[in-house]
């Protein structure tokens, strides 16, 4: 994938398939510590310990249409090629946590990219799922919780175009404010 935001979009699709109703995405980037960590947590159906053991294997997948599943292995590769680490924990009936860490300054570290664009896509198609996005830098933190936004809107829905557009701009503004390094 060209950007980490696309890996995140991909992994979140797994959470949605696992029937998650709350998905938390945390990006913690520190130039001072020269590290970026990405954590994706969901409250979906989780994986058996047997599946969890195999899940980073490119020939492991839950889909029937093909016998390869590249989302997790590609994200793992992206982390490891930037001198990083990757891990997944999961429990059936509880949910899954995907963790990727990588060296901020590594020449092969993919850019974080268009996170607001990833969320715009996710919010437009997943009305009934709640997302919490937390982005931390050396200068501050930005948080967006769809539950807060829905309270403000007074309706259950976030997918109206003007709302999506507003959130897109609000996120980019917030990320610029804390000095997030997206590219």
């Amino acid at each position, binding site marked *: 994938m060209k950007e980490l935001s*696309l890996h995140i979009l991909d992994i979140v699709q797994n959470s949605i398939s696992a029937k998650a109703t709350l998905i938390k995405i945390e990006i913690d980037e520190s130039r001072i510590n020269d590290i970026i960590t990405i954590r994706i947590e969901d409250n979906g159906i989780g994986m058996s310990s047997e599946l969890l053991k195999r899940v980073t294997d490119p020939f492991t997948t839950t889909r029937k249409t093909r016998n390869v599943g590249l989302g997790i292995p590609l994200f793992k590769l992206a982390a490891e090629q930037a001198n990083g680490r990757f891990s997944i924990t999961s429990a059936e009936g509880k949910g899954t946590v995907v963790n990727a860490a990588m060296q901020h300054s590594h020449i092969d570290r993919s850019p974080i990219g268009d996170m607001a664009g990833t969320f715009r896509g996710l919010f437009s198609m997943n009305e009934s799922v709640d997302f919490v996005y937390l982005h931390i830098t050396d200068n501050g933190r930005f948080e967006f919780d769809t539950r807060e936004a829905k309270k403000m809107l007074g309706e259950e829905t976030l997918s*109206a175009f003007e709302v999506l557009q507003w959130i897109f701009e609000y996120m980019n503004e917030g990320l610029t404010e804390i000095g997030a390094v997206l590219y």
Partner: protein
Amino acid sequence: MKSLAELAELREKTKNEINMRADRTSGTRIVVGMATCGIASGARPVLNAIIEETAKRKLDDVMVAQTGCIGMCRLEPIVEVFVPGQEKVTYIKMTAEKAIRVVNEHIVNGKAVTEYTIGAAE
């Protein structure tokens, strides 16, 4: 600087749009492939173009949804259009520009863009 409170103002403006979307089940569905193959080949800009264009054309009863692997990964990004009463149309190797044309010609004017379909590729 924006604040979340502005969403409360937007609520008034978008009330009508939200009410119409609640009745979406009777309308057209646009399904965008969002599996790893789709995302890697450019599904996100296709999705964003569809969101923007359907809003521009005020297509309030059109529902946009994601799907997983369709099984033809080399043809991604794939967009399937379901118009009630008609056969599904599968568009392949989509881009943002092609998506805009599909929304205007197929969804608005009712004429599928055959050159982008899987049928045309075979």
